């Protein structure tokens, strides 16, 4: 088996008495989609934040491409190749779709220390941005202001910005949230193809999507991973049924 692209080792985070992340060790292997599921409040977002660098764990470390990135901040981890989409859209709402994608291209390319040429008239940046927009199907919305986009289109844009970075791994926090059945289906198809480019760590509530996509699923309950396995393993796992699916039913 090949080395994992991304791995957490015994990650822990407490907020007062609440143990939000409890000794979590998971990994993401090349070419796979690894889904993390769990009831609300299980600590999924807290875990994602620690992996991406928005939150410092109390203990444990994060390895990315064979390197310990625990000490790096969010922007350094992004530069190292961690592409991220957010649960609640984090976009420049007053800017256009193209400008948001160009921002990604700036991060991926020569950086922000250029002060004279207009960014949206710099061919290299625009080409990269447009390629990413085309892949998620937002070419027609190129010049629209983000605030005027539908919820689903914002999700697509989140993914497009991550694509401009050509990341070595994707971390996606509920990309399906709020999408209609049609939108979920389209995004599911898209993510299915994306895994060959870079593996995806997927936090998702949409169980249809998770079971359709995931090579492996980990179940997080009260900050602890209680099971990891294939879709079938998880479906039939008694532990999971008790702790999670039982709760929900």
């Amino acid at each position, binding site marked *: 088996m090949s080395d994992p692209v991304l791995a957490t080792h015994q990650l822990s985070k407490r907020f007062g008495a609440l143990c939000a992340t409890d000794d979590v060790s998971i990994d993401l292997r090349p070419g796979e989609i690894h889904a993390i599921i769990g009831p609300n409040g299980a600590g999924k977002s807290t875990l994602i934040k620690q992996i991406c660098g928005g939150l410092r764990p109390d203990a444990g470390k994060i390895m990315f491409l064979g390197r310990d990135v625990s000490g790096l901040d969010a*922007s350094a981890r992004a530069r190292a190749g961690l592409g991220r989409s957010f649960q609640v859209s984090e976009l*420049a709402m007053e*800017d256009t779709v193209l400008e948001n994608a160009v*921002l990604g291209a700036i*991060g991926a390319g020569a950086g922000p220390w250029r002060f004279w040429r207009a960014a949206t008239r710099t061919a290299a940046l625009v080409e990269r941005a447009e390629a990413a927009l085309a892949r998620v199907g937002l070419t027609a919305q190129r010049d629209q202001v983000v605030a005027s986009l539908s919820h689903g289109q914002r999700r697509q844009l989140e993914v497009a910005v991550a694509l401009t970075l050509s990341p070595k791994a994707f971390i996606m926090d509920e990309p399906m949230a709020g999408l209609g059945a049609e939108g979920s289906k389209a995004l599911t198809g898209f993510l299915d193809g994306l895994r060959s480019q870079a593996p995806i760590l997927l936090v998702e509530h949409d169980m249809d999507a998770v079971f359709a996509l995931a090579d492996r699923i980990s179940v997080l309950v009260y900050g602890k991973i209680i099971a990891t396995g294939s879709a079938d393993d998880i479906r039939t796992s008694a532990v999971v049924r008790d702790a999670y699916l039982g709760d929900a039913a």
Partner: protein
Amino acid sequence: MRMNETWVNALVLLGLVAVPGWALMVDEPFTITLATRAAILALAAVGLNIVLGIGGLVSFGHALFFGLGGYAMGILAFHAQTYSALDLGFIQIEGSTSMPVIWLVAMGVSALVAAVIGILTLRTSGVYFIMITLAFAQMFYYFAISWAQYGGEDGLSIYVRNGFPGLNTLAPIQFFGICFVVLCLVLLLNARVQASPFGLALNAARQSATRVEAVGLDPIKLRLVAFVLSGAITGLAGALFADLNRFVSPSMFSWTLSGELIVLIIIGGVGRLMGPVIGACIFVGLEHFLGGLTDFWHIYLGAILLCIVLFGRGGVIGLLTGKEGAHV
């Protein structure tokens, strides 16, 4: 009525030239001085607009850079006019009465101080940033008051306006021309920077710092560079302002001036290229006309400001073009 923003911008600049042009013809030098004052305040506010409008940082201490520019001019000219060297301890330098030299020094000193204050303050955010920038400006205010060598509380008069190669700066219209050209050049710079990769990233960092981090950029570094650039521009304006009045005093550091610079931007439109220019013209106009009618014109300014804040964002440019101002 909705107008194209480019047309509004062109009209404003045209107006700013036409008024002193007319004043020259009918021999009203005071009006030229008013237009010069508006151009210089606009320049100072353009500097502030880079951090405030694009970067979203409410600097409530930009008078600091205005004052630094003013004192850079005052100190250099003072030493040149008294034929005494400026002793910095490790080096002695001659004063200067050449505007380009003074401008470079004013911008350099302002940029340096902005870098130091930026490093200290940009780790904080929100209300802390507002209060700390205010406090640092106040520190320089009190320092200027207690610095007796350069006039202390009374300020420092420079009897002859500094020179610019090939021009007679004592002629009001020529000095206006200098200020106007500087303003236009800085507006051009601002427009380019705003659209550049740097400006795009800075503007995005205002709207979502998390987003900017997620594409691998460091919002604090972006803001620091913006703060330095902004400080240098406002410092340049301070040097010109001191030359306009041929006088510097601690009041150039005063917190009311910091507040007024923000007010200019709000009146004109936050984050809009010409917002500060429109704001400065309106402000100087109000100051002149309302100030002529009543000693208490600040009451009306306050009332106007309250109305803008409570009822209408986007300022005059927003009103004319139907565009909302940047959200800070």
